[in-house]
């Protein structure tokens, strides 16, 4: 089959000789992929920042597909069902899944206990091949995959596998109360969705901070929020936020950037160039310093598993609450499907590039280098054109 093939940092290609996946467990399914996206967090893999990312792996944790084969224990799906597949691989019965912490499943990732299994996200997240391919194996298929509701746009469905739940959970974890000021660091797809979802929780002001003008312009339209460039509109983002909140700070700060943040030479050199820490924690540093005393910092940006330079003393002194997790997609899907079907959220509005799977090297480069005003690239495999 045709599949993305990781060859090293900044090097990927589409190969036609990857063996088709097969059923390896009674609760597996095999899905023919119809839509697949490149996530901002895939870029961390692409840039070689995530340990145990092995050559030959296929990335991709945001995809939809048609069920073509089922394990013997799967009774809630049938061949031909068109499903969206949450990026979490979750057993549904371990103590963490029982608490709806589907991103923290204890039975899907042998290689690390800190995170559950994730499709196509290195061996640190379980070593599963992902959905940037024509076919993909889906473990615990009785738990994750959800039949796409009739009338839902396929592109919307694909973004319900990660971007929408992660953005929504970022806002939810912020504990936003009516009238709160919310600052979102990062105007990538997750940051945009987090900003949009902050309104659903009743935010009074939503401010988004980035350094790419085209993304900030996009944010103003898409998320109807204030948007500022930290390289042009201010000397110091923390002081800027303090000033614009009567010197109190924001009620909620959301880190939607993660380990590849720009804006601090020290963080960039030690985190991204020398890899002395698990990426650059600039956004998190700003979030902690910009939130008001007793405020909440919500983290959905991806960081590596080692360590980062963050002002933990200020967390203590300001009495900040930090909330963070991988999105629990299955928990959130029913409500998010309602929002999409009611028109309150427009996920497909984020997609700026639709690229054939064969041209995956170009798609990764365009997204990574921020070419052509790219916000969100979607991959279309040949197999998508087969009638569902």
């Amino acid at each position, binding site marked *: 089959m045709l599949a993305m093939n990781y060859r090293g940092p900044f090097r990927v290609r589409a190969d036609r000789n990857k063996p088709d996946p097969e059923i390896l467990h009674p609760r597996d399914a095999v899905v023919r992929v119809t839509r697949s996206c490149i996530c901002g967090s895939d870029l961390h893999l692409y840039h070689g920042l995530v340990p145990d990312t092995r050559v030959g792996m296929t990335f991709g944790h945001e995809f939809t597909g048609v069920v073509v084969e089922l394990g013997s224990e799967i009774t809630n799906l049938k061949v031909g069902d068109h499903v969206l597949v949450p990026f979490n691989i979750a057993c549904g019965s371990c103590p963490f899944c029982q608490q709806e912490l589907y991103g923290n499943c204890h039975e*899907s990732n042998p290689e690390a206990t800190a995170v559950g299994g994730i499709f196509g996200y290195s061996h640190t997240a379980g070593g599963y091949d992902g959905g940037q391919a024509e076919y993909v194996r889906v473990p615990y298929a009785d738990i994750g995959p959800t039949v796409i509701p009739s009338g839902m746009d396929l592109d919307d469905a694909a973004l319900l596998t990660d971007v929408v739940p992660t953005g929504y959970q970022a806002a939810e974890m912020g504990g936003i109360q009516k009238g709160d000021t919310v600052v979102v660091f990062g105007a990538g797809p997750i940051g945009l969705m987090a900003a949009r979802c902050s309104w659903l929780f*009743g935010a009074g002001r939503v401010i988004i901070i980035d350094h790419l003008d085209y993304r900030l312009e996009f944010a103003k339209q898409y998320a109807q929020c204030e948007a500022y460039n930290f390289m042009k509109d201010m000397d110091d983002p923390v002081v800027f936020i303090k000033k614009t909140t009567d010197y109190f700070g924001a009620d909620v700060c959301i880190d939607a950037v993660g380990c590849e943040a720009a804006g601090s030479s020290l963080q960039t050199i030690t985190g991204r160039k020398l*890899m002395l820490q698990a990426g650059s924690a600039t956004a998190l540093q700003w979030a902690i310093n910009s939130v008001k005393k007793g405020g909440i910092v919500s983290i959905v940006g991806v960081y590596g*598993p080692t360590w980062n330079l963050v002002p933990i003393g200020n967390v203590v002194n300001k009495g900040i609450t930090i*909330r963070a997790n991988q999105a*629990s997609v299955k928990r959130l899907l029913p409500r998010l499907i309602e929002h999409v079907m009611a028109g*309150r959220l427009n996920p497909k509005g984020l997609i700026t590039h639709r690229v054939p799977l064969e041209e995956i090297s170009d798609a990764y480069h365009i997204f990574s280098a921020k070419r052509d005003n790219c916000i969100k690239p979607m991959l279309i495999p040949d197999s998508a054109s087969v009638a569902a």
Partner: protein
Amino acid sequence: MENLADSLLVDKSKTIEGWGVDADPSNNPTYPMKHYTGADHQRLAYERSKQQMPREEVLHSNERPGITRVFGTSSPPSGLSGQLRRYAFRFSEGSSAHWLTLLAADRVNVVEGIFDDLRRGHIPNIFKERGWNAEWRYNRKGVIQKAAVGAVLATAAVTFLILRNRRKKSV
């Protein structure tokens, strides 16, 4: 009388689709929550799935007793990088030796990947793999600038080496 803050919020609900529909005063402290699901002896006795049978080597964190009920089969450890990975898994996830060794293994694996390609008769097109087609399409000026800078630096380096060799010979 409605105060200014309240009137601003009302305006938001008029202009922003869905404003406040998920507002919940009780959403603090918020998700993720630890819900009580019984004492340890009750929690640990959960119903486990059947075990996926390993066909190839699967490494597992030393913070757990064995492999999980399902696991990925993408790229089993092999070669020198595989040796490094096996070594890395002797250390816990809290240890820098674990993660830094894995990063080193990843870099070794890249070189192994090139040899593996050649062994299979495939010469990797590194320009294409790095997406330079797209770079040429969307940032032609930048590509030309980089190429020009590279050419100047290469010319300078070659000139320097030639001159140094001549000086050595003349001495």
